[in-house]
């Protein structure tokens, strides 16, 4: 999460909700969503009320039916009609047709659904789409630009760092995020970065090699 977005969140961070004021569990307990008095959700301040313990007069309740939500994905604005309980993974896949993001465990343990919120990798199956409002979402489809592969994508191909390919988008997003914050990681750091990404075909050694190749780091460094 970027600093500027953080400032917009009145409630700030809590132990339960490090990124926004809304948790999936907390949200689902309620029938709907309390939000600022606008039908179109387009700013994170919309979600500040839950942690205040009451419903201010200026706040109306949305849901459980579909509401229009504005998402910023891969550099473009999209408005989708979704139930507030919709996860970001569902919104990307079903509403926006961006099926590169995979749903595997649907409970945040395999990282197959990894996307970036402002360059921070998150499990989109554990992120409500409304939590992504006001953030820049990057998916696997948005990692390459002008039909040119991201260097890490090219390295994955070069090293054959895939088999069935179902974990590959999540792996690429996790490793690319690592390179964003640490351009020259060690192998230990690469392993750490994908320690939440599950691959059933057993492609890990080549994923490490591909990422270290882009980083210009020797294996076992």
């Amino acid at each position: 999460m970027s600093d500027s977005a953080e400032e917009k969140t009145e409630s700030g961070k809590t132990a339960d909700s490090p990124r926004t004021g809304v948790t999936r569990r907390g949200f689902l307990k309620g029938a709907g969503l309390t939000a600022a008095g606008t039908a179109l959700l387009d700013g994170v301040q919309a979600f500040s009320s839950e942690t205040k313990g009451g419903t201010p007069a200026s706040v109306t309740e949305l849901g459980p039916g579909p509401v229009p939500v504005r998402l910023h994905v891969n550099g473009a604005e999209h408005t989708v009609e979704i139930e507030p309980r919709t996860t970001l993974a569902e919104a990307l896949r079903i509403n926006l047709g961006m099926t590169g993001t995979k749903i595997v465990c649907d409970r945040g343990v395999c990282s197959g659904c990894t996307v970036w919120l402002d360059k921070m990798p998150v499990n989109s199956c554990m992120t409500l789409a409304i939590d992504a409002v006001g953030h820049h979402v990057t998916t696997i489809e948005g990692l390459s630009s002008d039909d040119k592969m991201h260097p890490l994508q090219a390295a994955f191909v070069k090293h054959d760092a895939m088999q069935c390919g179902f974990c590959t988008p999540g792996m690429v997003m996790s490793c690319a995020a690592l390179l964003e914050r640490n351009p020259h990681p060690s192998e230990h750091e690469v392993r750490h970065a994908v320690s939440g990404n599950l691959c059933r075909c057993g492609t890990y050694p080549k994923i490490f090699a591909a990422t270290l190749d882009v980083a210009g780091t020797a294996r076992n460094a």
Partner: protein
Amino acid sequence: MTNRIAEDGLLEQAGAPGKKTVEMPVGVPGYTLAQESRDVPVAEPPVWPTNKDLKYVGQSVERYDGAAKVSGQARYTSDVQLPGMLYAKFVNASVPHARIVSIDTAAAEKYPGVRGVHVIQHVLGNAVLRNPALDPVKYPVVRYAGQPIAAVAATTPAAAEEAAALVKVRYDAIPFVVDQNKAREADAPAVFPGAADEAASAGGGGGPTDVKQTGNVHGPSIHRKGEIDQGFKDADVVVEGHYVTQVQTHSALETHGVVADWKPELLTVWASTQGTSSVREELSAFFKIPLTQVRVITEYMGGGFGAKFGAGNPGVVAAALSKKTGSPVRLMLDREEEHLSVGNRPSSDQTLRIGAKKDGTITAIHLVAYGTAGCGTGAGCSGPAANLYKSGSLHTEENDVFINAGPASAMRAPGHPQGAFALEQTIDDLAVKLNMDPIDLRDKTDDHPVRRVERQIVRESDLWKSRNPVAGASPGPIKRGVGLGQSVWYRFVSMNSNAEVRIHKDGSLEVLSGVQDIGSGVKTVMAQILAEQFGVPPSQISVKIGDTNHPQGPDSGGSVTTLSLTPAVRDAAWQASQKFLADIAPGLGATPADLVLVDGEVRSQSGKFDPISFRRAAAKMTTSQIAAQAKRIPDYDPKKYLTYGGVDVAEVEVDTELGRIHVRRVLSVHDCGRPMNPAQTISQINGGIIQGISYTLLENRLLDPVYGLMVNPDLEQYKIVGAREIPEIEVRLVEAYIGQSSTDASGIGEAAGVVSIGAAIGNAVYNAVGVRIRQTPMTPAVVLAALRAPAQGKETA
């Protein structure tokens, strides 16, 4: 290489009509390579030399669909979205054993968004009673918690899930059993009221049907060779062990499922499957419609590992709902359903005795095995005991034990990780007892010419040289050990392997087959074969597979795909090239016999014209497209070289205080005939090793004995190895030519490490601590218990 009209390698006409005798490379380059003659059909293409003399085949060409997979463009079944598509959700049994009294779907049908509800009348996958009249109820008897009962189709996934929860099922509970040992007892609850069988399937699931059944014990299935009693009498030493392995689930990342679109004239099904043909055949049989009215498409699929054959319950239920609603229906299982209802690797409980002479000659191998495939069969595990070593006598008894759990299915080298875990540790026990080196003992008793080379490579490796032959010798609480295990798999050929190659007038080339790519990379290999034939880069070849509209391809199970399909691809490419040269020869003022296709050029051997590019030559075609279709012909000499395998070495550290086993390094030496694409082959071997480590140390399907439910049907409590536990893996790929087909390829999926690594870890642990672990998963609790049982170490000393 050069492709001539005249047959290369033609030495003489053999006696048989329509045959020619060719010389083929056979053996391992650098070790045993020689030429052997084979009588092959006259129409077969010229013999390829070894990989070092080929341009594209045998090279690590980049994966054909790599760019699509890294960019999220690859469209899997779970990604398919059709206009008006409904989402379906199963209603599953909440109890492990019951007759269904009634199913009330009224509330679900009225739920907003619901378009159809289907109640299952014939559940697939479970063993079937020999006398079906013993199940005299309207609905299928529930034999495991999670068995599908009905399904709901709705306009959104959430509506389908909510409506499914409104279906009311009344059960008449039947006593159940989920513990394999309890199920063997005389007074155990019966999973079936009479004998039941699950016929063996093409994918490797199921088991023998001609055996007796006593209570829940289906068997034994007995195999004998020689006189076992005499074999033990002849023995100087006897070793014995009791080995127990757990149930593992496949846990492919893409769950089972389909998108079915029923139209009166054609049922189109996108399926996450290892066999497009198998799905089509089951749907055709189930709905009694001709094969021509079913089309199955698998553009990409997210892992199967043996569990994805046929339409299964998701396939037939989605098709039924599509027929009922008039809309396409998507039915993808959720993660819990994937664990419960669509297959697993059976457990094993093995008692293995081996007798041998002082010099290591094995005189007797006796295996008695029980395993559970849930409410299915297929827990046999005698493959390694029967096929790895020479023995004067062999006696195996295999039993399936029914329990109230989901039916097993084939899983990567069915029965073999279990069998090798027991066999290869017992062979090491024998080596200890005979005071022989484990490799010397195997050299004495294993004749396979390629494994002999592989053991030599292991013997000369730094990793093996670093092994201290004295078990438990390393100082301190963290003990290091090195051990090996051997694997075996078989050369199964699927004759349902067809391909078509098309040459277009613009010079573009395509190859088509119904085969699916399950991650092994068969698309890449098909492109490489055309590239080799036509002398153009693989990137210029268009590969179209995963569609039953194409010539039928093999189902991908038992490591059959590459070895079965590639000769058909090569033969089709060869025949298309011959048709092509014959077609353009007159336009070039040449005879077909004068033309050769080399390095992307058409040349006149007599110098009639300057070489022209393949593309320019194609423009001279007298028709817009030249095509040839070829089928798989039988192996050239099917009596020879029927197995292949490998040797895997593991280095472990055992923390004797915490009980933790850490696999540090693995050396994996494997053969698979002619490696068609070494990078892809190595990827599969890495995968076999990693899955095998996960199986040996972590994975375990846990069933609660009180409620009969799986307690870890997810990916956080069902532990699978992750990035931080992956060892350094060195793969040594051994080219092993066997002279069996026009490509001489074999398969690797099963033999790749998954068979042998568990035993290698077991032997390494013994080498580290001097105590043998005979149980998987080797959790810290299991390790500490073994370390604290001093008698156990002596048993094998």
